[in-house]
C-alpha cells in the first residue's frame, strides 16, 4: 500500500504531537500541575496513528485509560486536551473527565475509559449501528495486553463475530499490565492465536514501525469495512514511562528502557524510513517538530491561563433534561 505524502506528513505530525504532549504532561505532573491519575502513551505512538490513518471522522474509536495517543491520532483538539488535564472548565470535557475520560464524539472519539476493557463492548455497539445503517463505517477499540483477560473483552469479540459487525480490535502489547508481565497474565503462550480462535483474522505488526502497523491495520480495517465481520491488529511495542507517573518500574529488565528508547522509537524508525525512501525530507520533518513543540508549549501556556470551574458547574451535564416543574431528583442539606 503506498501512502500519500499528505498522510505521511499528517502521521508524522500526529506521532510527534503525541510524543511532545506526553513528555510535557509528564513534566507538568512532576511539577504538581496536573491532578489525578494519568497514564502515558509515549513509545506507542505508531499504533494509534497508523490505525487512525485509515479512519475518517465518522468512523469511531474507543480508547483506554492510556488514551491521549489514541485521541490525538483521531483528531482531538490538543489544546482542549491539555486544558482538560489541567482541570480547566474550558477543557474538552469541561474539567469533568480528565485524562482517563478524554472524548470528542463529533470526531468519532467515544472516549478514553478508566475501566479496563470497558471499551470493546461499546465499540461493538458502534459497529452494530454501522451495520444496521449500512454506512460503511468501522468501529475500532484499543485494548492492552492486560485488558484482553477481562470478561467484557472476550464477550465483545465473540459478539462481534456473531453479529458480523465491522468492529476492529486493536491489541497493543506493551508487555505489562501495571506491574505484571503478559507472560504471566495471559495464560496461553500465544495471544494472537487465542484471539483468532474467536473467529476473526488478526494482523500482527511491530509497533515501533508505523509502516508495519499501517499495513496490518489497513488489512484489518478493509476486512471489516468490506462487511466481512470483525478483525484484529496485534502490535508489540513497549511504553517508555511507568504505568503511572511515579511507578518505580521494578518489573523492568536491565537496560530495557534504554533499549526501548534507543532501538524501538517509532519516531526514529519513521525518520529512518523517510531517509531511505526520500518521501519526506529531513527539513520537512524538522519543520514539523518545531511546529509541534510550539503548539504544545502554547497549549500549556493556555491551559495554565484557562478558566477554572465554578461550584455550580458540578451538577450540570448529568442529564440532558431531568424532570420539570420543581421535580428534582436530588436533595441534600
Amino acid at each position, binding site marked *: 500500500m503506498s501512502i500519500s505524502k499528505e498522510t505521511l506528513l499528517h502521521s508524522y505530525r500526529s506521532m510527534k504531537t503525541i510524543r511532545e504532549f506526553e513528555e510535557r504532561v509528564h513534566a507538568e505532573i512532576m511539577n504538581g500541575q496536573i491532578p489525578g491519575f494519568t497514564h502515558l502513551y509515549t513509545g506507542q505512538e505508531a499504533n494509534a496513528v497508523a490505525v487512525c490513518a485509515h479512519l475518517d471522522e465518522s468512523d*469511531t474509536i*474507543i480508547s483506554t485509560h492510556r488514551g491521549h495517543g489514541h485521541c490525538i491520532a483521531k483528531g482531538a483538539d490538543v489544546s482542549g486536551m491539555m486544558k482538560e488535564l489541567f482541570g480547566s472548565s474550558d*477543557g*474538552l*470535557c*469541561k*474539567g*469533568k*473527565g480528565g485524562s482517563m*475520560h478524554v*472524548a*470528542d*464524539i*463529533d470526531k468519532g472519539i*467515544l*472516549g478514553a*475509559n*478508566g*475501566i479496563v476493557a*470497558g471499551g*470493546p*463492548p*461499546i*465499540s*461493538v*455497539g*458502534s*459497529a*452494530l*449501528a*454501522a451495520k*444496521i445503517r449500512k454506512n460503511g463505517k468501522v*468501529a475500532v477499540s484499543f485494548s492492552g495486553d492486560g485488558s484482553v483477560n477481562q*470478561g*467484557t473483552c472476550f*464477550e*465483545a469479540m*465473540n*459478539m462481534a463475530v*456473531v*453479529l458480523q459487525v465491522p468492529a476492529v480490535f486493536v491489541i497493543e502489547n506493551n508487555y505489562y499490565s501495571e506491574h505484571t508481565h503478559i507472560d504471566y497474565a495471559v495464560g496461553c503462550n500465544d495471544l494472537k492465536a487465542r484471539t483468532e480462535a474467536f473467529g476473526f483474522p488478526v494482523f500482527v505488526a511491530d509497533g515501533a514501525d508505523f509502516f508495519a502497523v499501517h499495513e496490518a491495520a489497513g488489512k484489518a480495517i478493509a476486512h471489516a469495512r468490506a462487511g466481512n465481520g470483525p478483525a484484529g491488529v496485534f502490535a508489540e511495542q513497549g511504553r517508555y514511562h511507568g504505568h503511572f507517573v511515579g511507578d518505580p518500574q521494578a518489573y523492568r529488565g536491565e537496560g530495557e528502557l534504554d533499549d526501548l528508547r534507543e532501538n524501538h522509537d517509532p519516531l526514529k524508525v519513521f525518520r529512518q524510513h523517510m531517509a531511505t525512501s526520500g518521501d519526506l525530507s529531513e527539513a520537512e520533518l524538522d519543520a514539523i517538530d518545531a511546529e509541534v513543540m510550539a503548539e504544545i508549549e502554547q497549549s500549556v501556556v493556555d491551559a495554565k491561563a484557562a478558566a477554572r470551574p465554578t461550584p455550580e458547574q458540578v451538577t*450540570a*451535564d*448529568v*442529564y*440532558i*433534561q*431531568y*424532570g*420539570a*416543574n*420543581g*421535580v*428534582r*431528583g436530588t*436533595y441534600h*442539606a
Partner: protein
Amino acid sequence: MPEKTMRDAINEALHQAMEQDESVFVIGEDVAGCNGSAGDVGSVGGVFGVTTGIYNRWPDRCVDTPISESAIVGAAAGAALVGMRPVAEIMFADFIGVCMDQIVNQMAKFRYMFGGKSRCPAVIRFSAGGGFSAAGQHSQAMYQVMTSFPGLKVVVPSNAYDAKGLLLTAIQDDDPVLFFEPKVLYQETAEVPDEMYTIPFGQANFVREGDDVTVVAFGQMVPKAAAAIDALAAEGISCDLIDPRTTSPLDENAILESVQATGRLVVVDEAPPRCGLTADIAGLAADRAFSSLTAPIKQVCAPHSPTPFSPELEAAYLPDADKITAAIKATLA
C-alpha cells in the same frame, strides 16, 4: 378502550416506536429466537414474549445475542452514542450483576465525564421483582440500587397503561433509561389506547386520593397498596396513593405536598430495607415535610434477606395488603 395485558402494551409500544423511528432497534437474548436452529428465526420474541413479532417486521433491527449481558448493554450504549435508539432486553434485573459496569460506569456517566458533549439515548428493559418462586437470583427488584446512580433514569410501571406510555417516553428520551417491568404484572390488564402516547418522567400518578395518610408505592406494590386502601375505606380511613412511576427523576413535590396535607407517610416497596426506596422517600419527608408530620414514617418492604424459593416463604417475604394495612393503621395509632 381496549383492554391489554402489560406484556402486550409494552410490545405495542415497541412496534410503534420501531415503526416511527428507524433508529430504534431491539437487542437481547432470544428477542428474535431460534437463530442458527432448524426452526423459524423470530418465533420466540423474548422469553417473556415482550418482543414478539418484531423480527418478522424488521429483521435487521431485531438483534439476537449470545449470553453476554455486558456486551448487550455495551452494544446498546455504543450504538446510542452514535445516534441510534436501542432498546436492549436483559432477561432478569438480577443479571445487572454481570453487566453493571456498562450500565453504571459507562452509559450513566458518559455525558458527565465528556463534559455534556454526548448523548446516549439507550433504553435497557428488565423483568424485575418477586412473586414467581424464582428464588434468590431471579427475583430482585434492583431498581432501588440503580436509582442511586446519577446519570440514569429509572422507570417502574405498575400497570399496562403506564407501561406503554412510559416506554414510549423512554425511547424518545435522550438520556439512558432503565425500564423495570414487574414480571408478575405481565399478564395484568388495563385499558390501553391503540395510539401512541407518552407519560412524562418525574410525574407521579395519584392512584387514590384521601386525607388521612400518604402511601407511596412502587411497581407491583401499587395494586397491593390500592387493595389495602380500598378495604380501609370501609373503616373510614382515606389515603392518598402515590405511584411515582419513575424513581429517577422522582416527583418529590407530589409526595411532599401530600404529606403536608395528611401528616402521615407509609412507603411500600418489595426490595429489602437497607438503602432502598422506602428509606429514600422517608428521608425526603423527614427533612422537607418534617413540620407536617404527625406520626412515625412507616416503611413496608421485604426483610433483610435474599428472596426465598418456597411459595409460603416468598409470600411471607413480600409485602402484601395485610402488611400495608398494618402500617397505615400504625401511623394512625
